């Protein structure tokens, strides 16, 4: 049986914005309820987690930003913007969250098999090279991806969080070794993720945005990844597949208006797994997901689909809007890629 490598949970004691804030420590308890419900027993391995070093963080964040964040926390922290906070130990929490991702990939590498899950706080995909935002301080999935591109490997990042991962997109905008694929509700925070955002002159087409209208159901999201993104993912031929697996696209989540069930995440996981080049090359990073109940069932369904474990998830959803928009956006996306090629020249 495939091993589940868990690197976490982290950030429970160090990073707490108060009971009003939806990104709260109790999310980790819900997530681990989902892991336990799989009933894997001896097939779960907990990877030892170390704090990411400055050198590891600096692959994707500017040293000036890291110094500013560390100093801000040392002064007691506070509200960085209306959504995002830091506490005295949030710098530690952020380094540990990023370190958990690195530990997960190292454990997969060592074992040569397994699927890794990285349940950490704070989440990461909104953090840019030099800016905290959207609950995120350090971009965990980006730190992990950059650790592999530094070794000459190619990384596919699939981001199915309800919000666009603007930070991840910006960090790898012009990187030919990373393909970033995102499904997300649009319009919605952070406002990025339009289909004509396709990557820079060094990586045209390696950013693939699949925006979805409010009310979109699982069949639309699945089609976006399985049909719209499939050619790009096959052509890219990644060495690693990392998933920014936010669960706030669930119909019960308070921060978005997509209509997915837990069973839809199981279907998405099966599709993404098709692009994993060999055993031990798939890691899922927790991003959003703010309803404890749906967070637990979605974690169980997602990991259960990959490991053939757990109970039977709720039925996938269908019939929501967005299919026609996906088709129209494909044309816009191809035009945008042509524009980038034209600007670069032969």
């Amino acid at each position: 049986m495939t091993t589940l490598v868990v690197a976490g949970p982290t950030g429970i004691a160090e990073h707490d914005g108060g009971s009003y804030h939806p990104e709260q420590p109790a999310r980790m308890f819900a997530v681990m309820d989902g892991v336990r419900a799989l009933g894997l027993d001896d097939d779960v391995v907990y990877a030892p987690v170390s704090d990411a070093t400055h050198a590891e963080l600096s692959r994707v964040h500017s040293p000036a930003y890291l110094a500013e964040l560390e100093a801000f926390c040392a002064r007691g922290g506070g509200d960085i913007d209306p959504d995002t906070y830091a506490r005295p130990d949030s710098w530690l929490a952020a380094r540990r969250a990023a370190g958990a991702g690195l530990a997960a990939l190292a454990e997969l590498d060592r074992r040569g098999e397994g699927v890794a899950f990285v349940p950490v706080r704070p989440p990461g995909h909104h953090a840019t090279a030099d800016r905290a935002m959207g609950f995120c301080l350090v971009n965990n999935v980006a730190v992990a991806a950059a650790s592999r591109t530094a070794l000459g490997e190619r990384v596919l990042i699939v981001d199915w969080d309800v919000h666009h991962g603007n930070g991840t997109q910006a960090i790898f905008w012009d990187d030919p070794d990373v393909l970033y694929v995102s499904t997300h509700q649009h319009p919605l925070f952070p406002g990025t993720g339009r289909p004509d955002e396709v990557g820079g002159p060094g990586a045209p087409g390696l950013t693939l945005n699949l925006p979805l209208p409010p009310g979109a159901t699982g069949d639309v999201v699945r089609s976006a990844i399985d049909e719209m993104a499939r050619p790009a993912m096959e052509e890219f031929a990644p060495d690693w597949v990392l998933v920014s697996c936010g669960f706030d696209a669930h119909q019960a989540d308070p921060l978005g208006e997509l209509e997915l069930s837990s069973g839809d995440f199981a279907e998405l996981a099966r599709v993404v797994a098709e692009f994993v080049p060999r055993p031990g090359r798939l890691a899922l990073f927790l991003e959003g997901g703010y309803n404890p109940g749906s967070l637990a069932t979605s974690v169980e369904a997602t990991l259960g689909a990959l490991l053939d474990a757990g109970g039977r998830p709720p039925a996938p959803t269908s019939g929501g809007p967005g299919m026609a928009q996906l088709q129209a956006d494909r044309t816009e996306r191809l035009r945008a890629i042509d524009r980038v090629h034209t600007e670069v020249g032969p």
Partner: protein
Amino acid sequence: MTDQRVVVVVGYDGSDDARSAVAWAATAALALGARLRVVHAVGLLEHAGMAGHGHVDGVLPLKTAVEAGLDPADVEWHVVDGDPCGALLRMAEPPESAVLLVVGSRGAGAHAGTLLGSTSLELAEHAPVPVTIVPRSGPPG
């Protein structure tokens, strides 16, 4: 017939600083013969009705702009889901093509003494058009 006048854009987050910025931007729009667009970016918590500052609406900024002398027909309240900096930068691109971006010196969530969360400094670094950062000059009248 399409209104061909240029557009001045001002960010508004409900803070006193932002209201000062609206007053300054209205004066600038008058001088330029421009229309004024007041932009409020809705973040994660506000979208979900969980924001500590509560609901931000356009009544106060529009009143401020009119008191500064602008015709009400030349002021537009624009709400967009997104990050404030990104939302304002997009206003400088076609089709909006604002000729000037205006913000208060510190927003509702920003902390004095840090660059973290500073929309104004981010804008100043990345905007393709002039940016005016308006200091708070005391409570608006």
